[in-house]
């Protein structure tokens, strides 16, 4: 197992290197003069010359690549052009929104998708199966941005003044304060460094912070704000998971050992949950892993619609404002996440199915 793990980790190194090069290229091939796009149209030739020399842009391209890789390894992504803030700080502040959103979306899709798939496999060809599959087929075909807008329309406008009303945008209501847990606990934060970044990161996860500070009103409010975006983002993975669970379960339920288990007198529930479901987990892991990657892409759209300043929306705004430093850093972070998820999927595959480790 350890040997397999190490082999997989080493195999992803070339891909990570490729990603570094791609993000490097993206920032270099973007049309326009880097100096004037950063310092503004009015920068004089002399100023530009100094700027280009300072940034090392007059050195050979491979030297620049090495400088870039060195900076990335030191965790230094440079300063945002538009917001004049260190990109690392932006990441620490905005990543939590996306993490919370993706996690909630994935949770919804798993909690709803797996039972739906199991039920429709067990009740194969019944009306519940037909309905689930119709829903699943429609679910994977819906544009995320459309679903989000429609949900906002129904739950924020049509259901206004009912208990089902949900806020259409933002992470917490105006006037609601979200004091970081470390301040509530009276901790003094160091000026900078990994530890303080980590604390800031954790405190920006609203739900976690609300629980840590025992602020139940805030918790309720944050959850209410999270429901609509999470449902919008989670629908496609939910449909994929339901479909995959169903087909994997159908495969397994038709096998001889299931009949044996039933024949020796085991109850139907025990057979379905203990014998069949465990063996249909394998393809599910793949779908869940792939969905996580899709979630990151969908987050761009969902965050734009629901007014959440997360990774996706920041990236989108940076693209339209041509803030290449952010584009480069955020794309890199997302791609590294993606590779890590794929690695996790492969490893859990090997854990669930011993045959893979050996071959």
């Amino acid at each position, binding site marked *: 197992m350890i040997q397999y793990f190490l082999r997989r980790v080493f195999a992803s190194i070339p891909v990570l290197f490729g990603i570094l090069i791609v993000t490097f290229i993206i920032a270099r091939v973007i049309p326009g003069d880097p100096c004037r796009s950063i310092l503004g149209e009015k920068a004089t030739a002399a100023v530009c010359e100094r700027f280009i020399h300072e940034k090392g842009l007059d050195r050979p391209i491979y030297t620049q690549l090495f400088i870039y890789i060195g900076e990335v390894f030191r965790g230094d992504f440079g300063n945002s052009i538009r917001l004049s803030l260190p990109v690392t700080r932006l990441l620490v502040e905005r990543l939590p929104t996306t993490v919370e959103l993706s996690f909630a979306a994935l949770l919804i899709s798993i909690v709803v998708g797996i039972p739906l798939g199991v039920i429709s496999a067990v009740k194969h060809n019944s009306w519940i199966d037909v309905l689930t599959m119709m829903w699943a087929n429609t679910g994977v*075909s819906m544009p*995320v941005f459309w679903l989000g807008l429609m949900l906002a329309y129904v739950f924020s406008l049509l259901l206004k003044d009912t208990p089902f009303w949900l806020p259409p945008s933002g992470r917490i209501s105006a006037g609601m304060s979200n004091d970081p847990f470390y301040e509530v606990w009276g901790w003094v934060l160091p000026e900078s460094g990994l530890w303080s970044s980590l604390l800031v990161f954790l405190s920006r996860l609203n739900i976690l912070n609300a629980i840590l500070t025992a602020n139940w009103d805030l918790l309720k409010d944050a959850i209410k704000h999270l429901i609509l975006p999470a449902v919008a983002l989670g629908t496609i993975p939910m449909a994929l998971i339901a479909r995959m669970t169903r087909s994997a379960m159908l495969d397994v339920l038709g096998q001889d050992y299931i009949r044996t288990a039933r024949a020796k007198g085991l109850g139907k529930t025990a057979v379905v949950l203990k014998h069949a479901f465990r063996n249909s987990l394998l393809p599910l892991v793949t779908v869940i892993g792939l969905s996580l990657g899709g979630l990151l892409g969908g987050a761009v759209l969902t965050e734009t619609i629901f007014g959440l300043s997360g990774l996706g929306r920041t990236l989108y705004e940076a693209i339209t404002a041509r803030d290449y430093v952010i584009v480069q850093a955020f794309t890199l972070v997302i*791609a590294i996440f993606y*590779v890590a998820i794929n690695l996790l999927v492969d490893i859990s595959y090997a854990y669930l199915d011993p045959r893979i480790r050996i071959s």
Partner: protein
Amino acid sequence: MTTETTDTIAKLDTEGLTLRSVNLWQITWRRLFRRRSAMVGLVILGTLIFIALAAPMLAPYDPTISMLDADPPQKIKARSAPCIHLLGCPEDQPQHIAGVDGNLRDQYSRLIYGSRLSLMVGFSTVTFAIIIGTVLGAMAGYFGGWLDNVIMRVMDVLLAFPSLLLAIAIVTVLGPGLINALLAIGIVSIPAYARVMRASVLTVREMDFVSATRSLGGNTYDILFKCILPNALTPLIVQGTLGIASAILDAAALSFIGLGAQPPTPEWGSMLGAERNQVFTAPHLVFYPGFAIMLTVLAFNLVGDGLRDALDPRLVHASS
């Protein structure tokens, strides 16, 4: 599939063997027609293609002109709700089945013309990706060695980015616009086809009929395109049909955030994007384009799933 239908196929196939030869495509069609969901997909798809072809006849107005410039000019408020005479809208008001948009254009005509763009986007990006993907995959699988390594590692890197994000990045480099968006989506979808083709090449390459072709003097071209490609066709078709669905979704998303088709082009994603802040006051302008995207994508998904089942060799074996 119930035993009854399996039996009928088996009967049909044995009849076919004695009377006339039944090829793979005939079997596929028959199986496709038997699946209700695939039929629904085919019907939606057929209707869409008809709408796209007959758009100038079906649309009451030019999709890009304002109602102020229509003949005769209409005095109508921007984003006014649908007015359908049959459903009790006063006769003296001009009929707009899906309302008018923020620039006083007839939404219904724009929706109809949008079908052209959507289908075009789906077919062109997937054709582009299939051509490049199969060539790369075939080279990687056939020649192996360092070429295989280089091609497949590049594909791995492409796959390491969420597809929509990579498409956004590529459009940023190329500049916004429909053609660039298509190119970006095409590039992003290449790895899927390259992988399918490479896998097929690897399985077929060592088979006896390939060695036979080689010993009969067939060159690389013959082996790749006459022996291997036909064997890789079925997975490519399935992947391609499902790929059209995701290409349409991605293109709509790019247009929605303003990187794809530019106004006044009647493209569903950009129509939705232009009116997205009006969802509370003019929901019809958001609902219809999104619904149209969903129907189109659903049709391709249903047909793709149906094809996958119909072309599944295990099922072919079971029924013949």
